[in-house]
């Protein structure tokens, strides 16, 4: 039996954290700003935390803010399960637990320097990508063109309205948006997110492309990117799964031999070409 193991620490113990701000972004998405009670948390773009609510359980949530933002961190959470449901009932000043950050597969912030960075987001897939998008905006000179494509199911499901219109107005980035189902109050693009890809075809040559969205989206986005000749080495996919323990033991997040909580959640597409359960 290994004696070098540190048994003084318990990997399942959450660190106490306080909600500094909480507000609804639309009917289902809650924004919370948190800080750990015992000091700052170092994290990288793409890493996730286990949010622990005593009596309810834990859920893995990817950090939505950029590590450049030093005071605490942000989560944006859809009310969809037990933990997220309980989180939606919490208010400013409430306490919860945080484990992590977890995941060695982060956004390649260094490797992407000097290149165009393209983010393709489906619905709430914007949330994990936002960490790196804002990181690029905070280090704007280090990167080439910044392009964000966002596809949302319908107009009422859009969120972060003021941040998105801020991106729209900036002249140092391209932000394009589409909704799957249009309505009378929507004057923008209508169609799935892949319909936006041909519009940026000219910029894809020297680009790194980052994809995050619902499971069904990946296959179609990858097909479109292949059509535009984007190489798998230049595509990164956020493949979040049911990451129960966060430490590569419980088995729930496994895609074939890969533990998403350890090797991911962000994977270089060329590394998962032979992982059939990835896409």
């Amino acid at each position, binding site marked *: *039996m*290994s004696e070098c*193991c*540190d*048994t*003084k*620490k*318990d*990997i*399942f*113990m*959450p660190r*106490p954290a306080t909600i500094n701000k909480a507000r609804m972004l639309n009917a289902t998405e809650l924004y919370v700003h948190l800080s750990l009670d015992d000091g700052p948390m170092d994290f990288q773009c793409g890493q996730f935390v286990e949010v*622990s*609510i*005593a*009596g*309810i*359980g*834990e*859920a893995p949530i990817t950090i939505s803010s950029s590590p450049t933002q030093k005071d605490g961190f942000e989560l944006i959470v*859809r009310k*969809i*399960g*037990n*933990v*997220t449901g309980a989180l939606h009932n919490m208010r400013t000043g409430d*306490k*919860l*637990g945080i484990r992590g950050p977890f995941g060695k597969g982060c956004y390649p912030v260094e490797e992407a320097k000097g290149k165009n960075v393209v983010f393709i987001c489906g619905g709430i897939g914007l949330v994990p990508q936002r960490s790196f998008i804002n990181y690029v905006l905070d280090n704007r000179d280090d990167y080439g063109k910044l392009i964000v494509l966002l596809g949302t199911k319908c107009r009422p499901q859009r969120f972060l309205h003021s941040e998105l219109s801020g991106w729209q107005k900036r002249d140092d980035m391209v932000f394009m948006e589409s909704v799957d189902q249009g309505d009378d109050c929507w004057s923008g693009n209508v169609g799935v997110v892949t319909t936006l890809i041909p519009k940026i075809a000219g910029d894809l040559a020297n680009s790194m492309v980052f994809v995050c969205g*619902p*499971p069904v989206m990946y296959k179609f986005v990858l097909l479109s990117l292949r059509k535009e000749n984007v190489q798998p080495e230049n595509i990164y996919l956020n493949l979040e*799964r*049911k990451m*129960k*323990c966060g*430490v*590569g*033991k*419980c*088995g*729930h997040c*496994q*895609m*074939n*031999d890969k533990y998403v909580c*350890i090797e991911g959640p962000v994977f270089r597409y060329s590394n998962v070409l032979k992982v*059939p*359960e990835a896409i």
Partner: protein
Amino acid sequence: MSLKKASRKNFVNFINELIQTENVIGVQAKGERFDFAPLKSAEDLRLDYDVTLLPPKRFFQPTTETLLTFGSEGQCQSEIDRGKFILIGVHPYDMIAINQLDKVFSENYCDTHYVIRRQNATIIACDVVAASKNVFASSMGTATVKDGFDILLTEIGDDYIAEAATEKGESLLKKLKGAANADAKDLKQRQQVQENNQKSLNKHILKCSLKDIPKLLDKAYKHAVWEEKAKTCFSCGSCNTVCPTCYCFNVQDCLNWDLKSGQRMRNWDGCLLDGFTLVAGGHEFRKNRADRFRHRLYRKGKYVPEKIGCETACVGCGRCVGACLPDIANPVNIYNRLVDDLGV
């Protein structure tokens, strides 16, 4: 380290003395089968058993355990089980399975709950006396074991050879009164028992060598066998439950009557169960039964061996063969089928 030989009578006295002061868990009869249970008398100990109903992993990773407790204000406290115990009668294949779990739970992130239990355990392993109906440890290279235990017992006629492998085992063996040092003849007899087991624990015979299995599986991902076998699978997870090397778990909170304080519990889980990969929102990543069936065989033959650096994560205990109602779980049958169809 000591190598002792003791008569059955001296051994029984030794165990009865241990029971007075220590928490001793040993293999006992349970109806017509056998299982590990707290030992009240050495007479109940059945080292002539064939296989236990459940593997000994539950003494290190219990079916359900408290990871932490939380008070009414949500404040958490880590709960570590620090009880010391002696586990008697672990067969070599189960010992090798424990060695594998040791790696899983101690490497990278250290799982304190498992590791403390493991460090507080003294394991007395024993060579197999009676082959079970479905054992195929000879095929998996797990019919004998070299390390992990504190003491290894081998039955030779009316005597036991006891080898101490650790300091813990050495000091325990000092309590074995009336034991003589084993001589060359005794060791030769022990070697014969072990060599015999390496050949005879083979109720199902693997047609390829162990190192061929990962390569075989590389070619077999889309083979028809997964759908064929899984057609009759109940997704009951029995194969996971009885497997000495399955360790997947779920974590759930349980509330006390005040609906505020409670415990965070860890429970066994199984990759064969429907819902194992289900996420909030309803998406299930391994929804297809055949995909779950295949995942178990790939974990045993490829994923876990590559992760922890062992030859195979199926140790050939044969429990899944007996536990599986539609009789589809036998890894040897599946690997052999792939050898027949795909070659090695």
